[in-house]
C-alpha cells in the first residue's frame, strides 16, 4: 500500500507542535489535554448511565421483594467484600498518586504506583474469582441455575458438609400448604397427581453419589446406567421398612414429568417426618428418571427422558429384589424414579420452623449480584489492560509534566470503577 495513509497518520501522530504526543489538529498540548479531560468526563457520565439500569433494577426488586434480599444476602461473604473494598480504595490512592508522580516527573514513582494499582486490581479479581467459584460450586447462581442444596432449615448449604455433593436441591417449595417438607431434596414441581397411589409413597434415603455429577457432565447413556445401578444399591442398603400399598392400584401409569432445569427428580410427594415415624412411611420408588434440562420445548438441553412412569407400587419383594439382585432388577431409565431424599431430623424441623423456606425467586438476588459485580469486574479487567499499557509507556518514559493526559484519564476511570464498587459493596454485602 502506498504510504499516503501513513503520512496522514504520522501527521496526526507527530504533529507540528514539537512534542511527539501532541496530535496535529490540536492547537497545543494544553488544548489536547483539556479535550481529553472533557472526553473522559463524558465517558464517565456514560459509564454511570450504563450502570444505572442495574441500580434501578436493584432498587425495584429491593422495594418489591425485600424478602429475597434478606434471605439471600447471607451467601455473600462480607470478609471478601470488605477486603475488596479496601483493596480498591487503596488502588485509587495509588492511581491518583501516579498522576502526581507524572506531573512531577518522578518516573520511578510513577512506575511503582502503576504497578501497585495493577497488583491491587489483580488481587480484586482474584478474590472475586474465589467468591464466584464458590458460588458456582454451590450452585448459588442466577435465575434458572439457582439451585443450591439447602438444608431443611435453610440455615446452611449442605454441600459444605458434603451431604449431597455435586447435586442440587430444588427451591420449589410448596407454598400452598404450611406443611413442612423434608429433605435435602425438596419437593419438585413434578406434574403429578398427588393422589395417585404410587406417588403417595414416602421416599427412602438415598445419597446421590458424585457420579451423578459426572453423568450430568457427560450425559451418556452408559454412565446413566452406571449411576442407576449405584443408586439402587444405595437405596437398597438404606431403605427403611417399606410400606405396602393397598391392592388394586393402577400400575405403571404414564404421566408427564416436568421440572425446572437441572433438578434431580425427587420424591413427588413427601410424607412428613411424622408420618414416617408412625410407620406409615412409604418405600422407595423403583426406577430412575434421568432427566436433564428444562422442559423439552426449549430444546436446549439434552433430555434423556422427558416422561416418567408412575412408579410401580413397591412391595417388600421389590425392595428385596433391589437389595438382593444388586442391579439385576429390570429397571430402565425413564421408568419410574428413584427419589433420593434426605430424611429430616427433628432438629431440621426446628430449623425450618424458625427460618422458613426460601422465598420465591430467590435466584433474582443472585442475578442482580452477578450482573452488577460481573459488569464491574469487566471494568476492572479493562482497567488492568489500560494500566498495563500505561506501565509500558511509563517505562519508555513517555510521560512528562507536559504530557501526562493518559495517566490522568486512566486514574479518573479507575476512580469511577472504585466508586461503583463502593456503592455495590453495601448494597449487596451489608444489607440486613
Amino acid at each position, binding site marked *: *500500500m*502506498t504510504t*499516503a*495513509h501513513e*503520512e*496522514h*497518520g504520522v*501527521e*496526526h501522530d507527530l504533529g507540528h507542535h514539537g512534542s511527539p504526543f501532541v*496530535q*496535529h*489538529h490540536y492547537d497545543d498540548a494544553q*488544548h489536547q489535554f*483539556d*479535550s481529553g479531560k*472533557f*472526553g473522559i468526563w*463524558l*465517558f464517565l*457520565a*456514560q*459509564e454511570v*448511565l*450504563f*450502570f*444505572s*439500569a*442495574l441500580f*434501578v*433494577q436493584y432498587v*425495584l426488586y429491593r422495594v418489591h*421483594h425485600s424478602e429475597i434480599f434478606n434471605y439471600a444476602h447471607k451467601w455473600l461473604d462480607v470478609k471478601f467484600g470488605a477486603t475488596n473494598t479496601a483493596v480498591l480504595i487503596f488502588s485509587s490512592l495509588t492511581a491518583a498518586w501516579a498522576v502526581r508522580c507524572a506531573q512531577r516527573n518522578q518516573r520511578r514513582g510513577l512506575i511503582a504506583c502503576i504497578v501497585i494499582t495493577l497488583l491491587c486490581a489483580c488481587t480484586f479479581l482474584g478474590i472475586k474469582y474465589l467468591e464466584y467459584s464458590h458460588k458456582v460450586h454451590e450452585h448459588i447462581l*442466577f*435465575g*434458572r*441455575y439457582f439451585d443450591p442444596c439447602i438444608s431443611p432449615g435453610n440455615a446452611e448449604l449442605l454441600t459444605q458438609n458434603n451431604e449431597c455433593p455435586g447435586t442440587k436441591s430444588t427451591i420449589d417449595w410448596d407454598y400452598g400448604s404450611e406443611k413442612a417438607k423434608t429433605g435435602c431434596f425438596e419437593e419438585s414441581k413434578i406434574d403429578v397427581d398427588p393422589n395417585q397411589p404410587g406417588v403417595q409413597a414416602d421416599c427412602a434415603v438415598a445419597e446421590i453419589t458424585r457420579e451423578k455429577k459426572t453423568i450430568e457432565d457427560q450425559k451418556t447413556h452408559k454412565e446413566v446406567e452406571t449411576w442407576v445401578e449405584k443408586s439402587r444399591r444405595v437405596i437398597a442398603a438404606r431403605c427403611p421398612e417399606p410400606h405396602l400399598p393397598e391392592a388394586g392400584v393402577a400400575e405403571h401409569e404414564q404421566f408427564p414429568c416436568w421440572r425446572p432445569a437441572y433438578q434431580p427428580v425427587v420424591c413427588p410427594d413427601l410424607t412428613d417426618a411424622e408420618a414416617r415415624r408412625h410407620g406409615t412411611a412409604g418405600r422407595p420408588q423403583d426406577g430412575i428418571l434421568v432427566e436433564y434440562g428444562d422442559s423439552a420445548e426449549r430444546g436446549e438441553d439434552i433430555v434423556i427422558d422427558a416422561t416418567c412412569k408412575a412408579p410401580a407400587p413397591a412391595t417388600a419383594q421389590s425392595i428385596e429384589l433391589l437389595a438382593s439382585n444388586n442391579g439385576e432388577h429390570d429397571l430402565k431409565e425413564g421408568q419410574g424414579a428413584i427419589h433420593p431424599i434426605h430424611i429430616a431430623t427433628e432438629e431440621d424441623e426446628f430449623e425450618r420452623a424458625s427460618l422458613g423456606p426460601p422465598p*420465591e*425467586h430467590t*435466584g*433474582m438476588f443472585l*442475578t442482580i449480584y*452477578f*450482573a452488577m459485580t460481573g*459488569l464491574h469486574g469487566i471494568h476492572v479487567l479493562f482497567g488492568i489492560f489500560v494500566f498495563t499499557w500505561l506501565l509500558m509507556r511509563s517505562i519508555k518514559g513517555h510521560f512528562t509534566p507536559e504530557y501526562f493526559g493518559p495517566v490522568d484519564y486512566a486514574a479518573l476511570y479507575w476512580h469511577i470503577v472504585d466508586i461503583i464498587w463502593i456503592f455495590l459493596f453495601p448494597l449487596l454485602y451489608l444489607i440486613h
Partner: protein
Amino acid sequence: MNLEILVLIIVVTALSGGALAAIFAGKKHRHALAWFFLSFWLGVIGPIGDFVLGQRDWVSPIVATIVGAVIGVVVVLVVPALPVQPDPVYPDGPKDEKDYLHCSKGFLSWALTLDHKRIGLMYLFGILFSLLVGGVFALLVRTELFFPGKTIVDQDMYNKFFTLHGAIMVFLVIIPGIPAALGNIIMPIQLGAPDVAFPRLNLASFYLWCSGAILLVLTIPFGGLDTGWTLYTPYSLESKTPVLVATMGVFLLGFSSIFTGLNFLVTIHKFRPQGMGWFQMPLNVWAIYATAIMQVLATPVLGITVLLLTVERFAHIGIFDPNLGGDPVLFQHFFWFYSHPAVYIMIIPGMGVVNELISTYAGKPIFGYRFIAYSSISLALLSFLVWGHHMFVSGQSRLANMVFSALTFTVAIPSAIKIFNWVATLYKADIRLKTGMIYGLAFLLLFTIGGLTGLFLGILSVDVHLHDTYFVVAHFHYVMMGSTLVAFLGALHHWWPKFTGRMYNEKIGQICAFGVFFGFNFTFMPQFVMGARGMPRRYWDYDPQYTIFHQLSTIGAFILGFSIFITVISLVASFWTGKKAPRNPWGGSSLEWQAPTPPPLYNFEKPPVLHELYNYDDLVEVEPDRWERKTPIEDEPEKADAIARKIGAVTDHTAGATQAERAAAMIHAKAEEVRAEHDVTESSKGKALDPKDLAADKAEAAKVAGAGEVMPTATAEQAKDEEAKNKDEGEKK
C-alpha cells in the same frame, strides 16, 4: 432457503459490489480485488449462515457461492477495464494541496483514515446501502398488504419483513444518518475546526457501526428477525429467530453512537475558533450538540438493556423473564428510556439541518436564533422525561400515565417554537426553490403533521383507542421518515457539492423531491384514516373495508421508494457527470462555504474569517450557483473590483465609473476604512468582526458623503435590511 431471500441477497450483492466497485475502484486492480472479496462474501456468507443455523440445505449455498464468485469475477474483469479518469482539478479546490478525496490513495488510506470527511463519507455510503435494504423490506411489507390475506408471503415472513425494515431503518439509517454521516462531514467545518477532537475514536465508532450493521444484516441470512424492532420481552426471549445476533448488533451500534456523540461534544466545546461563542455557532451545530448529549446519556441505557437481554437469552438470568421472577415491563421502561430520546436523536439533527436550509435558501437571517438554540437543548432534556408515553397500555400506574402524558405535551412547546421561527424566517423572504429548499419546506409540512398527531397520542383516553393502530405507524413515519429522512435528503443535496466537489442534477433533484413529498403523503395519509378506524399495526391480514387505504398506501410507497432510489442514483452519478462545484453554490453564510470545495485534509487553507452568523447581505450570486462575498478576501483585489462593479459598488480604482458609481465608491472606501479598523488582518484572523458597528459606520459614512440621493440600490437595500434586522433583534431582546 427461501428463494426470495436468495434473490434479494444476489441482487443486493450485485448492486453493492458493482456500484461500490464502480465508485471506488477506478485505477488499480487491487481495489477491484478488495471489492471482489466483499461481493464474494456478501454472496456466500448469508447462505452459509443459513446452512449452519437454518434448514440444512446444501443447494442454495452452492448456488449463491457460484453466483457470488461470478459477480466477483465480473467485477474483477470489468472494473479495471473501465476508462481511467484523471484526478479532477476543482476550480475552487484547495490551492496548495490536494483535497481530502485525492490526498492519498489506496484501500487502506480509506479504511484506516482519520479524516472526519472520509469517515463521514464511508458512513454515508453504509447508510445509503442500509437505506436500500430497509427500503426493499418496506416495499415488501407494503406489497404484501396490497390485498387482504396472502399476497406474496406468509405470516412468519411478513413478521420478519416489518421487523427488519424497522430495525434497519432505525438503527442503521435514521439514528446515524445525519449525526454520524453528515455531522461528521460538515460539523467540524462549520466550526472552523481541522478535525473532530478524537479522530481515532471517530474511526473506531465507524467500525463499531460497521460491525453492528453487519450483525444486524446477518439476521437476514440467519432466518430473519421477527420480534419487531423494539425487541420486547418476553417474546424476544422465546423467539426462534436470531435475537442474539440482533442484540449484539444493537449493542455495538449503541456504542458507536455514544462515541460519536462524545466526540462531537468535545469538538464543539473545545474546537470553536476564537471569536465564535456559543451563540455564534450555526444552529446545525447546536442541534448536533443537543443530539450528542442524548447520545451520550441515553444510549448507555440501551447498551445495558440489550446486554441484559442477550445474557437473559443464553444464560436465563431471569431479569426480564416472568417465569424466573423477572419483569418484562421493566424491559419496556429501559428500552424506551433510551428509545424515546432516540426519537429526538433522530429528529433534532433534522431540525438543525432545516435551519441551514431555510435560512440559506430564503437568504434571510434565521428568526429567533436563541430560541431555536435553546429549544434544541430543552427538547434534548425533556426527551428524557417522557418515555412512559409508549407504555400507556402496558400496565403503568394511573399516576405515571398522567405524569407522562402531561410531560409529553411540554415537548410540543420547543417543537412549536422551532416551527414558528422557521415560518417567520420564510416570511417575505426571497425563496429559491433549490432541491434542498424543497426538502426543507416538505419538512415543515410533514413535521407539523407528525408533531400534531403526536399530541393525539399523548392524550390518555385517545391513546387507548389509537394505540397499536396504523395511526401510530403514520404518526411516527411522519416524524422519522417524513421529517428526519426528508431533512437528511435535503442536507445531502445541500452539502453534496461541498464534500464531493460536484454539482448534482438540479432538475432530477427537484422532481424527486416532489416525488418524495407526494409519495410520502400518499403512503401515510391513508394510514391515519385506517388507523383511526381501527386497523391494528403489524397485522398480516385485514378486514376488506381497509383494502382501499392499504392499496393507496402501497402505491404511495412505490412512488416514494422510486423517488428516493432515483435521487440516490442521481447523486452518485454526479461523481462522474456533475459540474465542478464552486466554493459557495447556495449563498450559505456559515464557515463551511469558505472552505475549498472539496476541502483539503484539515479543511481550511488558512484560518477562516468569521462573519456575522446568518447574514446574507454581502453575499451575491456572481453567476448561477456561484456566490461570493461582496468584499472578498483582501488578497484578490481584482476579483473584488469585478464583483463590486457587477453589483454596483465600484471602487475609486475602477476605470470608467459613472458619477453615481463614484459616489458609491466613496461609501465603499469609507466602509473599507471601517473594516480596516476592525482589522481583519493576518495577525488577528479568526477574530470576529462586529458587523453591527460596520453597518453603523457605513450608514454614517453615507451621511458624511451626502450621497444619499445617489446611493446605489444595493447599498440602500442593504442599509434598509440591516436596519430592519437590528430592529428585529431589538424586539427579540
